[in-house]
Structure formats: structure tokens, C-alpha cells
């Protein structure tokens, strides 16, 4: 079959909402786009464990500690589901990790911000996980089967993350004036980076159009950002804390909240590696990987010895 014919067939399947599975024919650019997006997503889960891991040993109560630990464990799990999905496209796990560790692959810039107070655990769960859920729910219907299935699993688990974060924020904002100020400070610092999580404006987004045609994406960056703002404003009102945006107001005509301009210079600076914690995060990842090397080797040596023993017993 000619490539054009194969491509037509492929697009027809997508248009008919059929899923693409690993061994099906797919255009090379579809494969590459997916590997880039899924691995970037996997790296974000793994690097995302670091800012929260910072607070596990300092959680204020055992209940909070157990919940935070479970959340960070989930993130490890989510990274693994996603790496596995990427591997079905013919890329090896080692290659993916290499790309993260050498800086060739990106991860979500939000994790390059520091977590300086306990309230940040609340703000991350509420806002960062909230924004992630906004992004991820439509991905459960992505055209690539293994990615969509991984996302279904992730979304099911993720809803507890947002609720535990909101509960932390609620407790703080109903607490002493100092605690309430902590919650407000965390919102001040995490609000804008959370809005940036949806990526550049549609006009600037180089991948959106093709990804929408391939049904990898179902909504554009700006559509998802708007949904997030609309959902989050009433939640901040329940908390009784103020979103740090003087331009934020309900627009009756549009049926949406208007919000102020995002500082895209900051966004691109962090993407390029100049955020407050880029270097620290990468160093922690590479260190963990290198220091785990002997463990991985020892496990392989043990496994091959065991299988050798088994063979000798059979013989």
C-alpha cells in the first residue's frame, strides 16, 4: 500500500473514534509526537515527586503524612504507567531516562518552583493537580489506546490528590491568622505558574493543531486554561482567600471569568532551565539514578544466577 493510502486509512480510523494500537500502522510524526508527549508527561510525574517529597518527613500530623506519602507513591505509579505506554511505541526505558537526565526531554515547568512552606502541599494538590486533572480527563479519550488506558487509571487515582490538597488549604484558611496568611501566600506563589501549566497561548502553540486533528488533544491550551480558571475561582471563594489577579472578573457576556495577562517571559525562562529549582531537580534525579545503578545490576545478577540454578536442577 502507498503511504498516502495508509495515511488516509489512519485518519479515517481516527475520525471514526477508533483507537490506534501499538502494532497498527501510524505516521512516523504521530509516533514521534506521542513519544514526546507521553514521555514528557511521565518525566513530570517522576520529577513531580521531588517538591512534595520535601515535606513528607515534616507533615504536621500522621494523617497528613500518610496521605502525602500515598500521593507521592501514586505519582511514581503514574510515571510507570506512562513510561510503559511510551515503550509500546518502540522506544526503550533507558533511552527515555537518558533523555530526561541529559536535559533533552522536558518535564512540566511547575516542578521547578520551590516548596517553602507546608501550605505549598495544599496549593500543589489543589491547583497543580487540579490543572493536571483538567488536562488529563480529555486525554482518557486520546486516539492512542495505551495512552488513553493509562490516563483512565491516572484520573481515577488523581481525584484524591486534589481533595487532599484542598482540605489542607481549608484547614489553614479556617485556622489562626498566621495559618490563613500561609494559605494566601501559597496561592499567591502557585496561581500564575499553575495557569502556565496549560502551555503557550493557542496562537503560539506549535503542536496544537496537528494534535487536535489526530485526537491526541481534544481541547486547546487556552480552552483548558479557561475551564480551570472558571472551576477554581469559586473554590478560592470557599477558602476565603484572594486570587492574585486584579483583572480577574466574571464576564456575563462570555459566561466565563476574564483574567489578566500571563508573564510568558517567566514561563520561557523556566522552560529554558532558568527557574528557581531546575538545577536542583535534575541533580536529584541523576543522583538517584546513578546511586541506584548497583542495585539494578545486583538484581540482574541475582536473577540470572537463580535461573541458572533452576536449569541445573532440571538437568
Amino acid at each position, binding site marked *: 500500500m502507498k503511504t498516502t493510502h495508509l495515511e488516509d486509512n489512519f485518519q479515517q480510523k481516527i475520525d471514526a473514534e477508533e483507537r490506534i*494500537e501499538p*502494532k*497498527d*500502522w501510524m505516521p512516523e510524526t504521530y509516533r514521534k509526537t506521542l513519544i514526546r508527549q507521553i514521555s514528557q508527561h511521565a518525566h513530570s510525574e517522576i520529577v513531580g515527586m521531588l517538591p512534595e517529597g520535601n515535606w513528607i518527613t515534616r507533615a504536621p500530623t500522621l494523617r497528613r503524612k500518610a496521605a502525602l506519602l*500515598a500521593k507521592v*507513591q*501514586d505519582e511514581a*505509579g503514574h510515571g*510507570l*504507567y506512562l513510561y*510503559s505506554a511510551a*515503550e509500546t511505541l518502540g522506544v*526503550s*526505558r*533507558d533511552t527515555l531516562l*537518558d533523555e530526561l537526565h541529559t536535559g533533552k526531554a522536558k518535564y512540566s515547568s511547575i516542578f521547578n518552583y520551590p516548596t517553602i512552606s507546608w501550605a505549598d502541599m495544599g496549593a500543589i494538590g489543589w491547583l497543580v493537580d487540579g490543572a493536571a486533572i483538567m488536562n488529563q480527563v480529555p486525554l482518557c479519550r486520546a486516539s492512542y489506546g495505551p495512552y488513553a*488506558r*493509562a490516563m483512565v*487509571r491516572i484520573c481515577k*487515582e488523581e481525584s484524591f490528590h486534589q481533595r487532599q490538597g484542598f482540605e489542607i488549604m481549608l484547614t489553614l484558611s479556617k485556622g489562626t491568622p498566621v495559618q490563613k496568611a500561609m494559605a494566601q501566600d501559597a496561592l499567591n506563589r502557585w496561581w500564575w505558574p499553575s495557569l502556565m501549566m496549560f502551555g503557550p497561548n493557542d496562537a503560539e502553540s506549535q503542536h496544537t493543531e496537528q494534535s487536535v486533528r489526530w485526537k491526541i488533544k481534544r481541547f486547546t491550551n487556552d480552552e483548558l486554561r479557561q475551564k480551570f480558571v472558571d472551576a477554581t475561582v469559586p473554590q478560592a471563594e470557599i477558602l476565603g482567600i484572594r486570587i492574585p489577579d486584579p483583572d480577574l472578573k466574571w464576564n456575563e457576556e462570555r459566561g466565563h471569568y476574564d483574567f489578566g495577562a500571563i508573564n510568558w517571559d517567566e514561563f520561557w525562562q523556566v522552560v529554558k532551565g532558568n527557574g528557581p529549582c531546575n538545577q536542583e531537580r535534575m541533580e536529584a534525579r541523576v543522583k538517584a539514578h546513578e546511586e541506584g*545503578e548497583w542495585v*539494578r*545490576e545486583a*538484581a*540482574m545478577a*541475582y*536473577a540470572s544466577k*537463580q*535461573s541458572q540454578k533452576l536449569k541445573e536442577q532440571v538437568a
Partner: protein
Amino acid sequence: MSAEEWPLFEVFIRSKSGLHHKHAGSLHAADATMALENARDVYTRRQEGVSIWVVESRHISASDPADSDAFFEPAKDKIYRHPTFYDLPDELKHM
């Protein structure tokens, strides 16, 4: 970078007694014992299973999607294998 990547295993989970094991995903492990323990930690953190199977991915043989029309063709024209194929009188209520 380790010299040798841990092999890939496919994970199948029985969610409760009486149901089939169902494919849940895959993971890397040094051997089957580790694959089972990792599968427990990765895929059943919320009691999603009562039994797990793991098998090294390289042991799975799969049909080729490019040939699936021909491969599944034999069943296509055998509508008499379905109960709805048979003409029965309306008086016959249960069968």
C-alpha cells in the same frame, strides 16, 4: 546507564474471584518474583486485585493487525452461529 535493561513483563489482574485475569499494563523487573511484587505496588495500591499473573512480554505471540481482515475472515459469513438467525413464531415466548 546500566549495561542491561531489566526485561519487560505484562501484568494481568483478577479483580475478584469469579472473573478473568485482565491485562493491566506492563513493567520492568529483574525476574518474575520482583515483577509480581512490583505489579502489586504499581497496579493494586487500592485493592484492585486478588490475583496477579506476570509473563515476560517476549513470550507473548500476537496476531498481526495488518492481516486481521484475512485472519478473522472465517467468522464473518457465519451469521447462523447467532441465536437471532433463526425464524421462530411470536407465540414462542421463552427460548
